[in-house]
């Protein structure tokens, strides 16, 4: 069958199971767009290519499938890069298709030419420049295989315009043969044995669960493991949803804004079981003083992560679910009552200090907003957050029982992620209740995608947490820069009027009593709604480990957190 390169592109995408792509057309990708009309693919026209990249990312995180974004050469491709870097840092399986100038003018500074494979080299798992129609099928096939394989990630295929236009015999490569041995190594029995011996000897064991739990579908196995071995579980930010907070072994989030008793437990444990996490600096604090008293078992699919930041005693390379299932066969039941009692003791007055226990005194606190959002949605929503204070409060106060229900930018910390990622999530899971939780700063970075949301008639609800500041940066300025608020006070538009301009219903909430009714009204309206929560301006997220400080040296919640006069 003789097809154009553009047709071959879509033939391959459809065969990969792609039914939705996010993109923006332009000169160098026009042949692909023209051919698209012949294929059963829903194209979501974005307002900025960064949005397309985050949508593909949100789509992938919500569904576990590969998300696809498409853009033209030059500025189209460079606009994707923030989203590609985000997908790279958080290991999200995504494929990016970009148009490129015709092969005969490559390197001539042609109109809208940019070295896209050069630019994206360090922020992709792999990329390829295709100059010939005959190479498109193999490049696309490999892109999907690489994006999914092992530790997932973004792959970019840059296709010259003449390659899209050229005609060639279409042969679909049924198999993918990559150089080297790309299969996950077999799980070594002796490693399992060494790990089990450490577990048997441990008196204060602790599981550190990361995104690998979600990515490998290891949730059930992890619950069985924690229950059988009687080991408490601390979660990374991206591990949230991988282990239910209602489980008796669940301690909650670790790290910079984790609870102090969780971090204390990490520092005092005699065995850490790191499952599908990478010891990011936001969870370890100062590496020199991190968890000095423990042996460490690290189960991780990416061999280059084992021993990268923290030396470990047993490193097991493999799919977490398979490793846990292999361990479960021989895992003896144990009890660690003294250890649980100790952690309970460390909790101390944590609950009493919790802002949820404090009266609101007529003020609107973000923790209360998140808590009431959690209650009103029955804990069942897919929440897509932006980056900053609201993100940490969401992680602390929305209790995610199910995997893939918190979608958030972890490693890169990309402001502007929430709205487009939520559009992607909603496209992937149209039946899910999807909420955006964003700050006034991040929301304004990609608010143009409100038009995309409306154009696709998506029922997504948006909570803009407006404190009039770039709140997390302001918090650092308060703590570490003598309250010199350089460039953090932020002017925002009238968000309700802004929503109205896009034909989206808007509400403004200024008191706690209005939160639940507004949330309920938004979720029952059957269409998109935006709620602006005008919250306390100068609240800080507690507890906090200052960047680079010892994990146990936390700034704890003031007591009481509320009720005292706050200077405005």
């Amino acid at each position, binding site marked *: 069958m003789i097809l154009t390169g553009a047709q071959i592109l879509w033939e391959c995408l459809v065969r990969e199971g792609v039914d939705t792509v996010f993109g923006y057309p332009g000169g160098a990708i026009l042949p692909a767009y023209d051919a698209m009309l012949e294929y059963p693919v829903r194209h979501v026209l974005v307002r900025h290519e960064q949005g397309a990249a985050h949508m593909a990312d949100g789509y992938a995180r919500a569904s576990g499938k590969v998300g696809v974004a498409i853009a033209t050469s030059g500025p189209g491709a460079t606009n994707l890069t923030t989203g590609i870097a985000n997908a790279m840092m958080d290991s999200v399986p995504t494929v990016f298709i970009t148009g490129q100038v015709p092969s005969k003018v490559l390197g001539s500074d042609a109109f809208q030419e940019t070295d896209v494979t050069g630019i994206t080299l*360090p922020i992709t798992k792999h990329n390829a420049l295709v100059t010939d129609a005959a190479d498109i099928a193999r490049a696309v096939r490999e892109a999907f295989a*690489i994006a999914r394989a092992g530790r997932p990630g973004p792959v970019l295929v840059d296709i010259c315009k003449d390659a899209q236009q050229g005609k060639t015999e279409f042969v679909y490569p049924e198999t993918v043969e990559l150089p080297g*041995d790309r299969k996950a190594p077999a799980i070594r029995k002796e490693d399992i044995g060494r790990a089990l011996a450490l577990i048997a000897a441990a008196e204060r064991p602790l599981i550190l669960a990361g995104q690998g739990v979600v990515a490998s579908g290891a949730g059930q196995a992890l619950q069985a493991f924690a229950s059988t071995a009687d080991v408490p579980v601390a979660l990374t930010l991206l591990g949230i949803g991988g282990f239910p907070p209602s489980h008796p072994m669940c301690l909650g989030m670790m790290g910079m804004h984790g609870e102090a008793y969780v971090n204390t437990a990490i520092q005092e444990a005699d065995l850490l079981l790191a499952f599908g996490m990478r010891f990011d600096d936001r969870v370890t604090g100062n590496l020199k003083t991190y968890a000095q008293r423990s042996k460490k078992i690290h189960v991780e699919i990416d061999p*280059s992560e084992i021993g990268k930041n923290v030396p470990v005693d047993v490193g097991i390379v493999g799919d977490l679910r398979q490793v846990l299932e292999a361990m479960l066969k021989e895992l003896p039941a144990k009890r660690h009552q003294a250890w649980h009692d100790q952690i309970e003791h460390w909790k101390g007055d944590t609950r009493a200090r919790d802002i949820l226990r404090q009266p609101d005194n007529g003020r609107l606190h973000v923790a209360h907003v998140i808590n009431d959002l959690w209650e009103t949605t029955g804990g069942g929503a897919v929440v897509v957050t932006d980056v900053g204070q609201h993100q940490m409060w969401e992680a602390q106060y929305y209790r995610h029982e199910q995997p893939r229900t918190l979608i958030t930018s972890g490693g890169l910390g990309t402001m502007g992620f929430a709205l487009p990622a939520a559009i992607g999530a909603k496209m992937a899971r149209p039946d899910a209740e999807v909420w955006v939780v964003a700050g006034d700063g991040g929301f304004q970075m990609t608010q143009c995608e409100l038009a995309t949301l409306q154009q696709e008639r998506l029922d997504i609800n948006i909570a803009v947490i407006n404190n009039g500041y770039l709140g997390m940066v302001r918090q650092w300025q308060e703590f570490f820069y003598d309250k010199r608020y350089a460039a953090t006070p932020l002017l925002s538009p009238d968000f309700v009027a802004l929503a109205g301009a896009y034909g989206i219903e808007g509400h403004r909430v200024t008191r706690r009593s209005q939160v639940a009714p507004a949330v309920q009204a938004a979720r029952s309206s059957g269409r998109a709604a935006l709620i602006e929560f005008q919250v306390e301006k100068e609240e800080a997220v507690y507890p906090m480990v200052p960047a680079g400080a010892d994990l146990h040296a936390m700034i704890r919640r003031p007591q009481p957190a509320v009720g005292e006069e706050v200077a405005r």
Partner: protein
Amino acid sequence: MRHTLVARVCDQPGVLNRVASLFRRRAFNIDSLTVGGSETPAFSRMTIVVDTRRTRADLVAANLRKLVPVVDVQDVTHLPTVERDLALIRVRCEDGERPEVSELAALFRARVVDVAPGSLMLEVTGSEEKVEALLDLLRPRGILEMARTGKVAMVRGSVVNGCNGNGNGHGNDATEPQSAQSGSNG
């Protein structure tokens, strides 16, 4: 110490860029990197020397393996290997000093490959230490120009073939120049 990694990579455009980009982005410190042909036309062979005081060789290898065009990576540091570095050295040499320099070169089985008024060009092949030793002796005369290839390495056949009965395998180094240079009389 220094670790030697041998990587086989697909011979396609941009592979060296991917490897170099990886080293730069991960802030890996590399002493030397050589690229050349291998026994298979589709593959090139890289020899990478890592300074393990500053960069862990196992992390370099693990990260290299993640690059799609990298076929395999082996740390040969603790295996019996033949390692060679080649240097072209143009050394200051007045007319009357030629016999002296030639004699020195002969001791290192280096060859004089170019003669010019006031200078000689030597070609030397051997372990990095041997090349260093010759350079140390030539330096007082004035080294006008030098080009080194960086190290290439290959595991000895006794190990590759699975019979590691040749002691530490280093016993044959006395014969290195002949074996390295046979048939290359230019």
